[in-house]
């Protein structure tokens, strides 16, 4: 019989007029991995924040190991053995891994002893970190490892992982899952929040579903499937097939020739990249993260200076214009729209402290003849975006930073699409989005394609890339390792191409995958 280590009874939490959780009751058992599912803004993170002492519930009770507990601070949560790995890492950049791990503990500072203990934890569960490395030198997955070790160092028996795989490559995710299974074997209880259904199916034992702050129900993972879970999350039947209309009258729109981009430090990010993006087609871009995707889009949008090569924009009449070295504003006028969703989501494109309408205005403030800005149309646009993309927000006047991550993203993508582009550049448009919103976005992109827009879609999920794109360009270490027809190729081929150049370089990257 499973032993409940955490029991939530009628938990309610409000932020002003917004109800984040209402009457949630659920249990977490020892030695199991529970997947917490729900759409963006359904209150998963808020609920978990109450377990980790960041927020305090307005009503309801929490029982830990059968005893009633009042978790009023993160410290208390640690004492009860609850540790949370947040979606946005809580690490101090200028400190080392060790310093971050022991942060907040009492007693004399003894880094040597701490390092020994960290090593012990790493060996036990199969982590790999350098305790003396500074956080700012680390990759996203290393940072996450530090977070998990931090929690384990404090002796946590209940681990909460908030969208741990949102920023990881498939290989890194797989590594994480191995570690999670090790922890489960060790008798720890794990709660994972994720939007990726195949991950839920492969890692979790049980799923619990939240919808609009309410607890909907739970199932054993082995007895259910992706479609059923999605329906439960959304509250109605959702089709999980991505539509791929045939391109209508494709004509070259963007011609990239021998594009080479270097960073300020002289590292080559793009090496002799050439391709053509057609109107009315979706060109998918696949590659392990950091292989030059960002630089490619930025170079096209005029935000990134290039070493050599050319990017030519061809309009409907066939006349050409060189985009490289051109003013980003002129490029924008040609109809090139860039929506890039960075890891922290708010980094580019939106201003956190401004409300929805004002953020819409970032694109349109130059319009109009009067010296005063036109506030009415951005307002209308904001209302449209909220309506069409089902953005959960108390009002148009709410600052963007108050919205949950997925909703922020809908606002960004919605705005870019609304500018009626001729070329739509989008990167990680569905990063961190729940399944329903993701499909809304795919749909929007498809509509743009049908309008004759040339779409360049940088994606992480190969299944999506294969289902949505017409052609796929595979980047590997800044080089094009091939352009394939998405209709006839398969996942393995693309996966191989993503790592091809690494093999040639003689590193045995594949063994760790």
């Amino acid at each position, binding site marked *: 019989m499973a032993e409940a280590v955490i029991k939530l009874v009628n938990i309610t939490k409000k932020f002003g007029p917004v109800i984040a959780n209402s009457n949630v009751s659920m249990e977490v058992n020892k030695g199991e991995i529970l997947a917490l599912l729900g759409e963006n803004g359904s209150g998963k993170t808020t609920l978990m924040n109450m377990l980790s002492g960041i927020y305090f519930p307005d009503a309801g009770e929490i029982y830990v190991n059968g005893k009633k507990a009042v978790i009023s601070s993160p410290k208390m949560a640690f004492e009860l053995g609850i540790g949370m790995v947040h979606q946005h890492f809580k690490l101090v950049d*200028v400190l080392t891994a060790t310093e971050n791990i022991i942060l907040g503990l009492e007693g004399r500072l003894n880094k040597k002893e701490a390092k020994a203990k960290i090593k012990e934890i790493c060996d036990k569960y199969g982590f790999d970190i350098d305790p003396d490395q500074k956080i700012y030198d680390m990759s996203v997955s290393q940072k996450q490892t530090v977070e998990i070790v931090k929690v384990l160092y404090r002796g946590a028996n209940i681990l909460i992982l908030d969208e741990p795989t949102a920023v990881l490559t498939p290989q890194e995710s797989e590594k994480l899952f191995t570690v999670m299974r090790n922890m489960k074997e060790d008798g720890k209880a794990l709660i994972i929040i994720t939007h990726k259904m195949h991950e839920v199916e492969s890692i979790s034992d049980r799923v619990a579903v939240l919808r609009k702050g309410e607890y909907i129900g739970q199932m054993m993972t082995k007895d259910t499937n992706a479609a059923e879970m999605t329906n439960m999350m959304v509250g109605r039947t959702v089709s999980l097939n991505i539509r791929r209309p045939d391109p209508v009258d494709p004509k070259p729109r963007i011609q990239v020739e021998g594009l080479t981009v270097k960073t300020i430090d002289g590292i080559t990010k793009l090496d002799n990249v050439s391709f053509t993006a057609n109107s009315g087609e979706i060109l998918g871009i696949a590659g392990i993260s950091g292989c030059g995707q960002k630089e490619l889009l930025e170079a096209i949008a005029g935000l990134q200076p290039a070493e050599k090569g050319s990017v030519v924009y061809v309009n409907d009449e066939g006349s050409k214009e060189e985009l490289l070295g051109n003013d980003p504003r002129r490029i924008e006028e040609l109809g090139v729209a860039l929506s890039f969703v960075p890891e922290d989501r708010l980094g580019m494109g939106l201003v956190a402290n401004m409300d929805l309408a004002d953020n819409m205005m970032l694109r349109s403030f130059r319009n109009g003849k009067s010296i005063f800005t036109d506030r009415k149309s951005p307002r209308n646009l904001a209302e449209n975006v909220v309506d069409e993309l089902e953005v959960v927000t108390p009002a148009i006047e709410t600052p963007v930073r108050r919205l949950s991550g997925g909703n922020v993203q809908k606002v960004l993508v919605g705005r870019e699409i609304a500018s009626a582009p001729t070329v739509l550049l989008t990167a990680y448009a569905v990063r961190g989005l729940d399944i329903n919103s993701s499909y809304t976005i795919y749909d929007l992109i498809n509509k743009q394609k049908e309008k004759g827009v040339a779409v360049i879609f940088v994606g992480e999920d190969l299944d999506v890339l294969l289902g949505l794109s017409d052609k796929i360009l595979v980047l590997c270490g800044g080089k094009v390792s091939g352009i394939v027809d998405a209709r006839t190729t398969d996942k393995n081929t693309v996966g191989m191409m993503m790592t091809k150049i690494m093999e040639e370089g003689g590193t045995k990257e594949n063994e760790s995958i």
Partner: protein
Amino acid sequence: MFDIVAFIPRAIVQSVPLLYGCTGEIITEKSGNLNLGIPGVMYVGGISGVIGAFAYEQACVKSGNFNSVLAVLIPLLCSLIGSLIMGLIYCYLTVSLRANQNVTGLAMTTFGVGIGNFFGGSLIKLSGADVPSIALAKTSECFARKLPFAANMGWFGKIFLNYGFLCYAAFIIAILAAVILTKTRVGLHLRAVGESPTTADAAGINVSKYKYFATCLGCMIAGLGGLYYVMDYASGVWSNDAFGDRGWLAIALVIFSIWNPLVGIFASILFGGLYIVHLYIPTGMDYMEFKELYKMIPYVVTLIVLILTSMRNKRENQPPASLGMSYFREER
């Protein structure tokens, strides 16, 4: 000839108020509070000490006893309490009420200077002096007492031993601050609070407590700079506005010393020297019109230093990441 043995001690006494201000502000900024009120705090630290000393000297005149230990302790305590109150006001406004730190800091400076000049003016009236200043010669004599054997040790004594106790305290406090910041758990936590309060909070560190504590402690240290200036440097003579712009220089020094109190020691001695270098210009070059230009040197150097320091790109040498920002846990 440039008289180095005479120059160094003068540079050092000039540097002490700067060093106090700099150390205090480093500790404060490490907690993420950008206290631009430091000039005001140092002013209040000075005048509070003057008030204490004035009261004690007046009482002594009546009773006839003068105890030099009390003559030091009373102004010292008054000065610490005065600057502590300034720190508490600043913290209450910026930490508890989350007011804008820059605005609050600037207001504190205006307020502190105003308080100083108000009480200074009042005391001048009370003392009935015919010059616009108060002289606290007896108290100052206690504060500025040198090591007894300094006079017998030649140039070594002149350069290293010829100072009042507050001067040595400034250096000791700076070294202690450096050790605590880098070697202890309290220091680690404080740095975390200044870098990323969300992280610190999630790690179970009481962010508000650390901010209050560091800022108040920083203010008390800075206030001692004001006290040293009046009691030791200015030989117990308070006149309004005499403290000048040392408070602002101290804040600039924090950036110069890349938030490291040990660098702060050398930086403040350098600035102390620059502050008075115009007095040591060899004869023949010290035309009046040039003299004013020489006086500009510390400010010009400050500007150059600010430009240079903004160019370095090592992450450890950057200001605390959340400097100047208020923290509210449930803010998303």
